[in-house]
């Protein structure tokens, strides 16, 4: 950890977003500390992906602001923002005719001039992204021939090639077997140690508790709890947010919270009021 960069913290202040007539993000505040791995948790439709898109500038918030350190993300130029923030999507769409190395090289887009081709440095960074994601052996394979899990790793490598300071991951462990999930999250944590702030939308609460320094729980477009996983992930919260009965025990080996599900909780008489 000789030349670790100094990371910045992410602050989201009173962000609001509607699509059509539907309020998707409702005056949302949250923070991810500098250099931390933040896990974004919540049931389907809670607004996790939308929040990541708003931070990345893919969608524009109706109100509120997102800051990274001192920088107001909405006021940055698109290219400049894409050099600071990278988003790895969960969707694994087909891109015919591109090799894995070419897909990863797309991450250099915000760093390239209009006319110049990739430089030696660009190639080296792409090579590093491939190596970090364990893709060197697949570099010349056609992207369309990869499995879902391999594509997921390519998405991560592409995001790393952007050389981001803030890495946003939308369900990065989708399609991965358990070993690959642990490796993915282990790698993400190592990257954070090297001076990167991470916010990852995750579904697996135990994995989030094991790897995240900070968790943010969303429900219906609002933050219902945030902070240290030990403090946040309680049986009461899990019942309220996911409508699931669970015990939270201490992992015998790691000491991290471990969520053991017991069954489905009775539905609320009334939906959580927005």
């Amino acid at each position, binding site marked *: 950890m000789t030349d670790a960069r100094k990371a910045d913290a992410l602050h989201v202040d009173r962000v609001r977003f509607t699509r059509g007539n539907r309020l998707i993000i409702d005056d949302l505040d949250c923070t991810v500390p500098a250099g931390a791995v933040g896990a974004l948790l919540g049931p389907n439709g809670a607004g996790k992906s939308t929040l990541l898109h708003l931070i990345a500038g893919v969608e524009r918030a109706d109100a509120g602001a997102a800051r990274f350190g001192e920088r107001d993300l909405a006021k940055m130029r698109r290219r400049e923002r894409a050099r600071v923030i990278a988003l790895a*999507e969960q969707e694994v769409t*087909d891109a015919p005719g591109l*090799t894995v*190395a*070419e897909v990863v090289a797309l991450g250099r*887009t915000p760093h390239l001039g209009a*006319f110049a081709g990739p430089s030696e440095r660009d190639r080296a960074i792409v090579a590093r992204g491939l190596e970090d994601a364990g893709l060197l052996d*697949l570099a010349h*394979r056609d992207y369309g021939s990869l499995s879902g899990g391999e594509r997921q790793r390519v998405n991560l490598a592409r995001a790393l090639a952007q050389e981001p300071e803030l890495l946003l991951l939308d369900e990065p462990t989708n399609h991965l077997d358990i070993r690959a999930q642990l490796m993915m999250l282990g790698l993400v944590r190592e990257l954070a140690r090297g001076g990167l702030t991470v916010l990852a939308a995750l579904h697996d609460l135990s994995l989030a508790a094991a790897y995240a320094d900070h968790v943010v729980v969303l429900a219906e477009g609002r933050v219902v709890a945030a902070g240290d996983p030990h403090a946040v992930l309680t049986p009461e919260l899990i019942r309220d947010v996911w409508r699931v009965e669970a015990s939270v025990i201490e992992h015998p080996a790691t000491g991290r919270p471990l969520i053991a599900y017991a069954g489905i909780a009775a539905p609320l008489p009334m939906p959580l009021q927005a």
Partner: protein
Amino acid sequence: MSRPTPPVTPVTPVTPVTARRVPKTGRRADAAPETGASGPSEQPLPVFVTTADDAGAGRRGTGSGAGAGAGTVRRGAGTPAGAKRSVPTGAWAVGLVALLGASIVVAVTIGPAGLAPADVFASIAAHLGIGEPTLSPLRDGIVWELRMPRVLTAAAVGAGLALCGAVMQALTRNPLADPYLLGLSSGASVGAVIVIVLGVGLLLPFAAFVGALVALAATLALAAGAGGGRAGSLGGAGGSLTPTRTVLAGLAVASVFGAVTSLVIFWSATGDSYREILNWLLGSLAGTDWTSVAIAGGAVLVIGIPLLTSAKTLDAFAFGDTAAAALGVHVGRSRALLLTATALLTGALVAVSGSIGFVGLILPHGVRLIVGSRHRALLPLSALAGAIFLLWVDTGARTLFDPRELPVGILTALIGGPVFALLLLRNRGLR
């Protein structure tokens, strides 16, 4: 396959690059890649270990000789960015430019009058003022006034249509996109025919552009609107449009605009209106002159060259609008700007040639098979291939049934229709 056979013992490294990696430990054997990458690279990161299973034993990768053991590495793994293609893009470009030059000279000699390449060079030299005229005025006229403009127009139209097709395929993420299939060419024909009837020929390319733009907007609105998707504005459309819907919408638009073109000609024409209608609907390069070269060639230079610089943006669209936006692309503005440019270019081309189909579909797909989907290579090579393709097809159109002429669009459809069918079969996942 010229690759060496994979070693029997799977752990044997093949290249020095792999020798420095220790497989299966989960640790990097050395800290930094040999290229001297910058960034925090000293601490050993846990890396994924790609096992034989992952590496695709039993799974077929295109052209990469999968099925090797854990220790084997694809050729050139140390320089991953684009080493797969066996012939470099630059070599293809040089080869195609040379082929285009040779094709122009040879195509001019083909036809009655028994010209030789030397005659063509002599005529060119004389007209450029660097040689004495040696040909008889009649033969010189055949070279310089008849065949040379026609061959150059064919090349320019072919280059422009192929370029439009490649750009539209990227922006709409639709392998079936092409100026003809999405109705742009038909719209441009209506615009062109109307100003010709009204006798304001100066406005010809502009009117064709307006027609193309109206047709494009109609196609996208139809494809998006009826599907309950987003409104069909130029900026918003494309990402959510399914290829099939878009092609069907293009068919509807092309039918209506084609009928309007026919009606306008039939209503106004005094002479052989059927031939006129055929030439506009199917496309023909008969009767092209140096003005045609100026319009088509000028449009290819003025619009096509800026389009070539959009390669990086088009690449970013490969994974959809969200990914493009996250890579710093202004998605709505870029798409609107680039689609307008294709409409402008299509308008200028159709103004001189009518609606020639399938060139924008066939050539980009053919070039993609050879150099892949990166637009830095795809756009210029598609343009060159399109120029050569249409030049020769048009040479066929004017000589096959000599002295009668075939509208060139009949031949491009004869070749393009089966290619379209092949694309349908290959893209079974298309919705």
